[in-house]
């Protein structure tokens, strides 16, 4: 697994259920960030030249390589639009989210 995924988390009901000391499991995500998004990036694979500029500049690391294609993890993309703005071929379009 190259990236953590959302896990179910049951909040402890007793103080003994909380972690002792400052340690906690690495890569434990109890929540997604998808709700932050107003616009979602959509990749046009016909114009994409796979230069990986978007992969490099994504502040959240949600753009990943999927068998030679650019893919986006929509669970954690915040829709900041850096990828679309930096794309040299304008192959990423920011589409308004429909509720």
């Amino acid at each position, binding site marked *: 697994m190259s*990236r953590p995924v959302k896990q179910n988390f049951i909040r402890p009901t007793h103080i003994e259920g909380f972690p002792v000391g400052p340690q906690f499991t*690495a*890569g434990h*995500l109890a929540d997604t960030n998808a709700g*932050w998004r107003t616009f979602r990036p959509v990749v046009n694979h016909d114009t994409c030249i796979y230069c990986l500029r978007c992969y490099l*500049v994504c502040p959240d690391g949600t753009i990943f390589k999927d068998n030679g294609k650019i893919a986006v993890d929509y669970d954690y993309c915040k829709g900041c639009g850096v990828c679309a703005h930096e794309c040299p071929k304008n192959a990423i379009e920011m589409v308004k989210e429909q509720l």
Partner: protein
Amino acid sequence: MSSANTLTRITPKNITDQEFFYGHKACAGCGGSLAVRLALKVLGERTYAAFPAGCMAAVGFIYPQMAFTNNAIITTFPGVASMASGIAVGAKALGIQNFKTVAFAGDGGTADIGLQALSGMIDRGDDVLYICYDNEAYMNTGIQKSGLTPFGTQTTTTPAGKNIHGSKTQKKNLFEIIAAHDIPYAATASIGYPQDYIDKVQKAAQVKGPAFIHVYASCPTGWGTPTETSVEIAKEAVDCGLFFLAEYENGDYRLTRNPKQFASVADYLKKQGRFKHLSDADIASIEAHRDHKWERMRRMWNHQ
């Protein structure tokens, strides 16, 4: 050049697919989180990371979330370098092999509050890579002026009014302060030039001893810029000469980017809410300060 050239250069094609800073709660378009993400991807899984009280600690460690997939810890605000020193020597004493210790702090945690701990860390020669992501104010607590806030910036503690136009002081010359310790390796970088930043992190990771990288990282919230331009604005800061890319190695300074002609300072400043109030005279004084600084850097540093 150094032995780093014999290593395979890390590029987007061969960088690890693993994400070590993922699902964090930083603002959309955060430049600091990009700096942390790229550095951890270069350094790999066997990295101990230390973060002082600052944005990255606030967005990464929200119980029951843990956005780091490597070993990471929050430290006291002034003590990130001391904590990282302790981790490095502690892990060595335990016989742990093949690891790197890295400290990430913002501009306030480095240039103001954490400066003495950092100075001590370099002095002792501890094997730590220290990365300062510079967003030019205390962003986590609500945009207060720090030692690295440049002249004319509007922050909540240096508001722009009729008589005083934002911050009255110039940006501290942190890079030369660190280089003056005779550190084995120090560099400045910008998230606007991500490949250059990756190269410098890779080079710094090979250093046995203290290394320092000052990376310019934009903050859409504090700077008043649209989220999508946060990489572009960090590139423009370098292009217009208000931030420079340089290295200090084996006692020599070197400009890694020496543009023949600067882009317009006014264009760069006017894109940001924090500089909206600046008058033409203020911009001219910022340009004069830039030219003076570059004249000295080119005269003293450039041996190519």
